[in-house]
C-alpha cells in the first residue's frame, strides 16, 4: 500500500540513473543507516546505563557479533565483485584477507627487517630495524593493506585470461595455499616471532584509543584507558558503508557494465571493445582491495592478535564463498544478507539449543550443540539453494515485488 512507485516520475536522466528507483527504498536505506549509526550505539549505551543490560553483554554484542558481521560483509562485498559481477570464481579470499592483515601489521610496525651481525665478542646479535616510520592510523592502514592486496590479487588473477570456471577456482586455490604457507614460513612477515603470531600495536584515531591501552594521568592518578567497543564498531561501520557505496557506484557505472559483460558473454564483450584481461584484472584488483581491507579490519579490530595459517585457512575462503552464493551473486544487498546469514545463524543456534534444553530440563553439552549446529546449518544451506538458487537477494526482490502489489494484486 505504501510501497509503490505511483506518482514518482523522473524528468531527467540524472535522476533516473540514481541508485534507487523508488523513494521508499531510499528512505529505507537511510533508516537502516540511522539505526546502525545512532540507534544501536545510543540505545545500548542507555540500556547499560539504565541497568537493563550488563556492560559485558554490550561488549559481547559489539566485539563478537557486530564486528564479525561487518568484517564478513566487507569480505563478501569483495568476493561478490569478483564472482558475482565479473564471473570469476575465487577460492583465495581468505589468503587475500591474510595479505591485508599482514600488510596492516607490517605497516603499523614500520616494516621491520632483521639485521644480524657479530658483535665485538663474536656473538650473533640480531635486531629489528624499521624501514619506514610506523603508522598508527587504522584508516590509513586499511587503505594501504587494500592496496598491497590488490597487487597480490592482480598477480594471482593473471591466469584468469586463459583459465575459466572451475579451473580458475583451482588456480585461486593455489593462491590460497601459497599465501597461507607464506604466513607461517616467511619470518619477515611476523617479525621473526617464534610463534608466528602477529599482534596489533596500540593505535589511536582522532584522539580515541582504538587498540591496545593507554595510561594517562588524571586527577593525579594513573588511569588506564581501554578502547571502547563503540569506537571500533563505528570505525568499521563507517568503512564498510563507504566501501559498499563505492562498490555500488562501480557496478552501476561503466566499470560494472564491463564486468557483467565479461561475465555474461565474453566473446560479445570483446566485440564491443572490452579488453578481457584488463577488465578481469581490474575486478581482481578491486575485489582483492576489499578483501584486504576486510583482513586488516579483522586483524586490527576483531582479533587483535592472530596466527596467519590458522585465521586465514581454507574454511574462511569457503565461508565467504557461501556468503556470496547464499546472499545472491551479483548483488550488493546480497553480500550483506549472506554475511548476516552465515555469521548470525551459528551464533543463534549456539544460544538457542542450550536454552531449549533448559526449558525441558535436558542438559545440552557444548559438543552436542556444536554437532547440531553443523547439521542444521548444512541443512539450511541445502534447503536454501534448492528453494532459491539465486540467493537471499532474490527473495528480498520477490518480497518487494509482492509488497508493491499488496494489498490489491491487480
Amino acid at each position, binding site marked *: 500500500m505504501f510501497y509503490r512507485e505511483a506518482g514518482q516520475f523522473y524528468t531527467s536522466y540524472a535522476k533516473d540513473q540514481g541508485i534507487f528507483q523508488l523513494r521508499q527504498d531510499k528512505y529505507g536505506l537511510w533508516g537502516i543507516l540511522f539505526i546502525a549509526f545512532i540507534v544501536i550505539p545510543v540505545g545500548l549505551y542507555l540500556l547499560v546505563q539504565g541497568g537493563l543490560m550488563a556492560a559485558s553483554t554490550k561488549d559481547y554484542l559489539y566485539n563478537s557479533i557486530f564486528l564479525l558481521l561487518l568484517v564478513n560483509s566487507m569480505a563478501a562485498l569483495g568476493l561478490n565483485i569478483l564472482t558475482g559481477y565479473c564471473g570469476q570464481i575465487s577460492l583465495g579470499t581468505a589468503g587475500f584477507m591474510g595479505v591485508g592483515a599482514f600488510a596492516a601489521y607490517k605497516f603499523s610496525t614500520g616494516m621491520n627487517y632483521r639485521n644480524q651481525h657479530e658483535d665485538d665478542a663474536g656473538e650473533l646479535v640480531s635486531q629489528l630495524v624499521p624501514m619506514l616510520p610506523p603508522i598508527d592510523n587504522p584508516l590509513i592502514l586499511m587503505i594501504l593493506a587494500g592496496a598491497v592486496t590488490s597487487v597480490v590479487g592482480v598477480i594471482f588473477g593473471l591466469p584468469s585470461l586463459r583459465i575459466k570456471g572451475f579451473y580458475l577456482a583451482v588456480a585461486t586455490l593455489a593462491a590460497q595455499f601459497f599465501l597461507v604457507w607464506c604466513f607461517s614460513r616467511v619470518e619477515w612477515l611476523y617479525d621473526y616471532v617464534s610463534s608466528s603470531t602477529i599482534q596489533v600495536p596500540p593505535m589511536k584515531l582522532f584522539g580515541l584509543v582504538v587498540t591496545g591501552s593507554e595510561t594517562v594521568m588524571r586527577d593525579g592518578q594513573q588511569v588506564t584507558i581501554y578502547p571502547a567497543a563503540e569506537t571500533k564498531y563505528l570505525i568499521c561501520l563507517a568503512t564498510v558503508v563507504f566501501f559498499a557505496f563505492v562498490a555500488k557506484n562501480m557496478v552501476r557505472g561503466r566499470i560494472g557494465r564491463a564486468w557483467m559483460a565479461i561475465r555474461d558473454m565474453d566473446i560479445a564483450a*570483446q*566485440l564491443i571493445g572490452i579488453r578481457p584481461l584488463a577488465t578481469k584484472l581490474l575486478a581482481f584488483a578491486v575485489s582483492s582491495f576489499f578483501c584486504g581491507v576486510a583482513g586488516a579490519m579483522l586483524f586490527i579490530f576483531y582479533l587483535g592478535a592472530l596466527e596467519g595459517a590458522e585465521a586465514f585457512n581454507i574454511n574462511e575462503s569457503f565461508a565467504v564463498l557461501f556468503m556470496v552464493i547464499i546472499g545472491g551473486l551479483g548483488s550488493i544487498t546480497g553480500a550483506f544478507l549472506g554475511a548476516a546469514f552465515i555469521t548470525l545463524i551459528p551464533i543463534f543456534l549456539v544460544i538457542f539449543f542450550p536454552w531449549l534444553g533448559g526449558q525441558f530440563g535436558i542438559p545440552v553439552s557444548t559438543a552436542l550443540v556444536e554437532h547440531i549446529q553443523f547439521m542444521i546449518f548444512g541443512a539450511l544451506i541445502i534447503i536454501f539453494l534448492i528453494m532459491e538458487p539465486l540467493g537471499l537477494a532474490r527473495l528480498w526482490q520477490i518480497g518487494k515485488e509482492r509488497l508493491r502489489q499488496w494489498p490489491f494484486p491487480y
Partner: protein
Amino acid sequence: MKHSERKFGDTLLKVDNITLRFGGVKAITDVSFEIREKQIFAIIGPNGAGKTSMLNVINGFYHPQEGTITYKGNPRHQMKPHEAAETGIARTFQNVALFRGMSTLDNVMTGRLLKMSGPSMRYYHNKLANMPVINYLTYPAMWFGDFLLDSLYWGPYQKEEVAHRKAAEEVIDFLEIQSIRRTPVGRLPYGLQKRVELGRALAMEPDLLLLDEPMAGMNLEEKEDMCRFVIDVNDEFGTTIALIEHDMGVVMDISDHVVVLNYGRKISEGTPAVVQADQDVIDAYLGVAHEEDLNEN
C-alpha cells in the same frame, strides 16, 4: 529510389585472397571482395559455406593464413576483436549473444563503453598522448583519476553517464524498444532479443556493421520489422552493412551487392539480379545432376 541506382562511397573494406585453414580443413579459400561505403552487402551460401568464418575474419576472431584485409585504406595487421571494435566494426551474432543478466538499457549502454572516457583520459588523449615519455608517465595517473571518479559516481562522471544515456535512449527510440528498457534481456522473446542485440551494436556508432543472420528464426512480421531497421540504419546513419542471411527474398530485396560462397570459395558476385541468374549459384543451392545419375535415367 531503386537500390541499384544508389551512389556508394569509396571502398571501406577490401578482402584480398583470404585463405583460412583449421588444421587440414580449409574453411575459406582464396576469397576476395570489396565492401564500399554505405552499401548493404550480403554474403550468402549454403550451410557450411564459410560465411560466418568470413565475418569472424573481418572481426579479428580468426586470423587467416593467407591474404590481406584493407580497412579504411590501411592494410590491417592481425588484430584482436576489441581492436576491431575500436576501429568501428560492430557485429551481431547468429545465436543471440546478449548479456543475459543485464537489462535492455544496460546492454545498449554497454555498447557505448568505447565512447565513454572520463575527463582525465580525454585530457590525456588531447594533450599528453603525443608527448614522448610524458605519455607513459602520466597514463596511470590519468587512468586512476578516472577510476576514482567512476567509483564515486561523482560530478564529471555523472555528466558523462547522462550524456551517454541520452545516446542510448536515441537508439532505444529508433528500435522502438522503450517499453522493455528495464527488463532483463533473458526474459525477452527471441525476436526482441535480436532487436536489442542490433541496438547494442548501433550504440557503438559503427562504420561497418556485421549482421550474422539477423532474421533467422523470426516470423514474417518480425522479419519485416528487422528489414525496416536495417534499411533505416543504412539510410539515416549511412552505416555500411554486411549481412549473412538465408532468406533469399530478404537478401534480394534489400542488398546492393551480393557475394556467394560455397565450400569456402567465392562462386559468384554482383547485384542481386546478376547473382540470381548465375548458373553456378543455382547449382550450389539446388544441386547438380551428376553424370551417372543422368546416365541411369
